[in-house]
């Protein structure tokens, strides 16, 4: 019975995906509950400060809230409540700021913007980085190549946040070529009209650019290093001996072998790219999850904050799963290792 190796690989990956999400949620849960400080109490006190007088029997109010959000009783009971609410029904509890609407409403509203911006920027920067990194690695002897490598090394360390600041001040303030904030012109009706899409693109350019320009250089460096190490492989020497044209060797031998490790690298760095996006959205007031996160923090809206955090974990995990499932198509050895 020839068990289908790739199927095993897929099933194993999905099982790992579910396990990882459950694990991440558990880690997050215990993390919060072990940290001193009580979110609701803090919120009530901040309200007292803001409106300048003591709220009577604020203790009862806090208890009532805790009960409604399943934050009372023994820890394991809270944990079950938490899993039941969050994992099964996606109910993240009410948002503090605009009570009683559930927090997930805002989060789901913000999600498409972040996924759009982040997804697009990541794909573009990975592809650009992969191609340029490949070329830089392939032509590594020329002085130009080493110069560009040095430059891209420095640029890769410029964090998206700094790039965002520079772009904002240069293009938005100084040259006023691009809008300064938001994701679309509020005056245009939200519909699939060409005008609306144009405005979305216009608003999205600077944030996307600040993500692409920095992460792309990161990929250039890592792909170049991978290509340089592949150049030392035996099958490269053999390909050259076969008299193949340079371009064929670069395409079929170098880049194809470099692809798998780079995709694994992409899967690992998704977490970091999300970090960058949060900051970029804050600067451009781009209505994605990052911006919502920073707002809800300043207003101490914990349910939304926790909701965003959990959802971003799911987002990153899903993206990693998709990449993992992509791998058997790129590299025949993945999944079939068992039957060697």
């Amino acid at each position, binding site marked *: 019975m020839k068990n289908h190796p790739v199927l095993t690989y897929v099933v194993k990956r999905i099982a790992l995906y579910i396990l990882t999400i459950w694990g991440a949620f558990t880690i997050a849960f215990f993390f919060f509950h072990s940290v001193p400080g009580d979110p609701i109490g803090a919120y009530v006190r901040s309200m007292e400060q803001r409106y300048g007088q003591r709220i009577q029997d604020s203790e009862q109010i806090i208890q009532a809230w805790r009960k409604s959000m399943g934050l009372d009783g023994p820890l394991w009971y809270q944990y079950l409540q938490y899993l039941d609410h969050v994992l099964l029904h996606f109910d993240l509890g009410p948002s503090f700021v605009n009570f009683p609407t559930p927090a997930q409403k805002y989060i789901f509203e913000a999600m498409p913007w972040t996924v759009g911006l982040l997804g697009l920027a990541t794909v573009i920067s990975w592809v650009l980085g992969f191609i340029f990194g490949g070329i830089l690695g392939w032509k590594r002897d020329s002085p130009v190549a080493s110069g560009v490598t040095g430059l891209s090394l420095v640029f890769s360390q410029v964090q998206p946040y700094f790039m965002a600041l520079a772009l904002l001040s240069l293009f938005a303030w100084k040259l006023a070529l691009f809008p300064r904030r938001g994701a679309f012109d509020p005056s245009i009706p939200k519909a699939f009209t060409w005008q609306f899409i144009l405005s979305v693109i216009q608003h999205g350019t600077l944030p996307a650019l600040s993500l692409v320009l920095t992460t792309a250089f990161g990929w250039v460096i890592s792909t170049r290093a991978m290509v340089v190490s592949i150049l030392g492989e035996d099958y490269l020497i053999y390909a050259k001996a076969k008299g193949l044209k340079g371009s064929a060797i670069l395409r079929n031998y170098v880049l*194809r072998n470099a692809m798998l490790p780079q995709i694994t690298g992409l899967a690992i760095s998704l977490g970091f790219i999300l970090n960058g996006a949060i900051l970029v959205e804050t600067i451009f007031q781009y209505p994605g999850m990052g911006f919502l996160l920073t707002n809800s923090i300043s207003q101490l809206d914990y349910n939304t904050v926790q909701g965003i955090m959990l959802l971003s974990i799911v987002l990153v995990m899903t993206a990693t799963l998709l990449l993992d499932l992509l791998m058997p198509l790129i*590299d025949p050895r993945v999944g*079939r290792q068992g039957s060697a």
Partner: protein
Amino acid sequence: MLEIRDVRVHYHSVRGDYRVVDGVSFSVHPNEILGIAGESGCGKSTLVEALLRLIVPPGTVDTGQVLAPALTAGTSDKSDLLSLSEEEFRQLRWKNISYIPQGSMNALNPVMKIEDQIIDAILTHDTITRAKAQRRVGELLQTVGLSQHVAKLYPHELSGGMKQRVAIAASIALQPDLIIADEPTTALDVTIQKMILQTLKRLKQALGCTIIVVSHDMPVHAQIADRLVIMYAGRVMEIGSVYDIFGEPLHPYTRGLIATIPSIAKERKRLAGIPGASPSPLAWPGGCRFHPRCSIAATICQNEEPELREVRPGRFVACHLVETAASLNA
């Protein structure tokens, strides 16, 4: 068929120049299997890499010519392979000169099917349809004793012996005039080695091409080589037919090398080694490079490097004391 003249390959490093191949000259006759023998570090693999122009920095081919009028006739007027432009030589690769990698090397591209790796060589040099090339691959695999379905497999699904036979099949895809096999049976089991050596011999008769076999394993040369070149410390010590070399070795190093081969013949004579260790390419010993390890070394050997002399037609040796060495054989 091929005239190698004073080829030198040096590797430049922080600690100085490694003179791995240091002035090698010999000729290769058409339709023969020429064996290049010598221990590790004698420069034999680097020499054939230079012939195939696979030397990459920090290594450089400093001097030398490789005259092969027959091979370059088609593409350019110059007959020295080393002076051809990269593009001119690329057209010769695999059509005229092909290469069989070491048994232990993973020379096959891990992410490509076996058949695609042979077809891409064929289609680069030959204008036939892909379907015809695919059939050609099927025939090639047949000639080396592999079944058709191997074409669809990936390298990691094959055993060492099968990978090496795929390499041989690929090397004869375009009926080249010269095949260079660099340690083709290292790291392979002895039963598979026998099959691969016999396949090589059979293909040479069938295609009428010339094969250069590099190996440190003297019994392998005894089995398949017609002529033998013995190398030591980056230079040629002795050249001759395989019967002369084994029957009547002239150079003390060759004799020492043959004495170290254990055999499963009836009487079990005491195995002799060669004292000392092979010198470093950073600083070859003065005079004859073998004198520190040579049992009959004289003062002349210490300060004068012997020339490669033709003592008999087709029989070359680089040793001042050929007469005394010959008397030891009697």
